[in-house]
């Protein structure tokens, strides 16, 4: 391994192609941390946005007029405004209104850090799309299947959890995957509030080493591979989950 790292140092000395995140241990750790933060942020947002989607779609089917209106208002508001402004709104506007807590060094720090706000904001953003996606899936489940479950004595929650959702999930998987891939790409916005994800760490490295070109190209390739792997995995999953004879 050290041999490979050293080779990149030689590469820099010989050709001027500077890739410090490969031969320099400090930069390497930064880059790995950034990569892991991107993955972590993506996973947290994936999880919560799917939860928001499921709950939102369930609330949209509720009998109360105002529940449906509020859910619709949420969807329209988050779909038609820039995610970056939402992020700023959450982080700066709402973040400053919250109480502060004392940190380990005796200073005052916000109750939620930038990572938490990025996770919250992006989850709500992707969740708004997920609600619509899940709703279209739930509508695709035939009424008679739900009636059959009712006749068998399932409760409303049980029907949603055990009958409607598993069927709807398979129907919406392509649209859902599309949205989740978009979400992973949107995590780069967290850069704007200094979450140390991949773009942020790359920026730090190119500020220190003045190797913008190499870092930029590496970053593009890294995201290309990351998203490409994700898309490939999602497509396999879609094939595995396909309902035989449908669509």
């Amino acid at each position: 391994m050290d041999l490979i790292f050293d080779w990149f140092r030689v590469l820099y000395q010989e050709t001027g192609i500077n890739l410090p995140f490969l031969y320099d241990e400090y930069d390497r750790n930064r880059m790995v941390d950034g990569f892991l933060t991107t993955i972590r942020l993506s996973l947290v947002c994936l999880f919560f946005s799917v939860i928001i989607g499921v709950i939102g779609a369930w609330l949209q089917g509720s009998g109360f007029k105002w529940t449906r209106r509020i859910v619709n208002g949420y969807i329209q508001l988050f779909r038609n405004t820039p995610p970056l402004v939402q992020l700023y709104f959450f982080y700066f506007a709402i973040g400053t209104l919250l109480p502060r807590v004392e940190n380990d060094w005796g200073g005052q720090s916000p109750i939620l850090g930038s990572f938490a706000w990025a996770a919250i904001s992006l989850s709500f953003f992707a969740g708004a799309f997920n609600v619509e996606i899940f709703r279209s899936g739930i509508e695709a489940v035939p009424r008679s299947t739900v009636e059959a479950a009712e006749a068998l004595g399932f409760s409303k929650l049980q029907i949603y959890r055990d009958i409607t959702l598993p069927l709807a999930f398979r129907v919406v998987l392509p649209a859902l995957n599309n949205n989740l891939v978009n979400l992973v790409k949107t995590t780069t916005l967290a850069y704007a509030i200094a979450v140390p994800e991949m773009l942020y760490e790359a920026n730090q490295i190119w500020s220190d080493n003045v190797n913008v070109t190499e870092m930029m190209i590496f970053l593009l390739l890294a995201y290309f591979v990351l998203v490409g792997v994700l898309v490939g995995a999602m497509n396999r999953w879609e094939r595995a989950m396909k309902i035989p004879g449908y669509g």
Partner: protein
Amino acid sequence: MNCKTDLPVMLPVSKPEPEPFCGLRAWHILPLALLAIFGPSLAFAQSDEGVLSPLAVLMNWAPLLLKGFIFNLVISVSAMALGTVVGAMLGLGQISLIPAVRGGSWFVTQFFRNAPWLVLLFFAMFLLPFEIDLFGLKIPFPDWLKAILGLSLPVMANVSEIVRGAVNSLPSGQWEAAESLAYTRLQTLWLIILPQCVKRMLPPWMNLYSILTMATVLASIVGVSEVMTLTGQALASEGGRPELLAPFYGFVLLLFFVYCYPIARFTVRLEKKFAVIG
């Protein structure tokens, strides 16, 4: 898709419906949002003498912010125009009969589709020169122009996919019929296939425009003075009063909502109108 049956079969997926909206119409959002923005600021309104209320401060800055927003729209329209032209060519390249052209176009499309918008914007910002030396004539290459180029890259890739998808969605009978009428490939494409595609491409294209408009704020991160940058500067020059943050950012949210929401509604209506029955 109006097939009625009592059998327990899976129904076809319906398009995300244009939300029945149960009485809550587009213009209802406006007073609600205004309330949400200015409600909290009114709570601060009983302030000391000499300090303007958040609402008054916002009104002072609103003309400047609106100017910034118009700049955003200029960026979005230019990037869309550029991206559409290049993307359409790339999309046609994807259905070319020459394998090299097809493969190349496919790779370029996938590459720029998989990269995050912000990274592409950084890419354009830092790697393009700040001026071009053309035959001894120095043409300056300002930030906003680079932002337009950077934003048009993902637009190009997405338009390419839209074109390819639309062409592939036409039944192959169209091609065969044209061939039997002795049309050349170019004639078939230009006179028969593409006119039918325009209708199918319009809704996703408008959707893309809406996404692009919302992405123009990314330019603030790389220092173009559009609405988000101006908001930050306005807040700073007011001395960073915390009660101003919510109204100002809320105002920017509102600007984008007022612009993008009608586009979204119109897109849904077009989608319904052009939906193929059966």
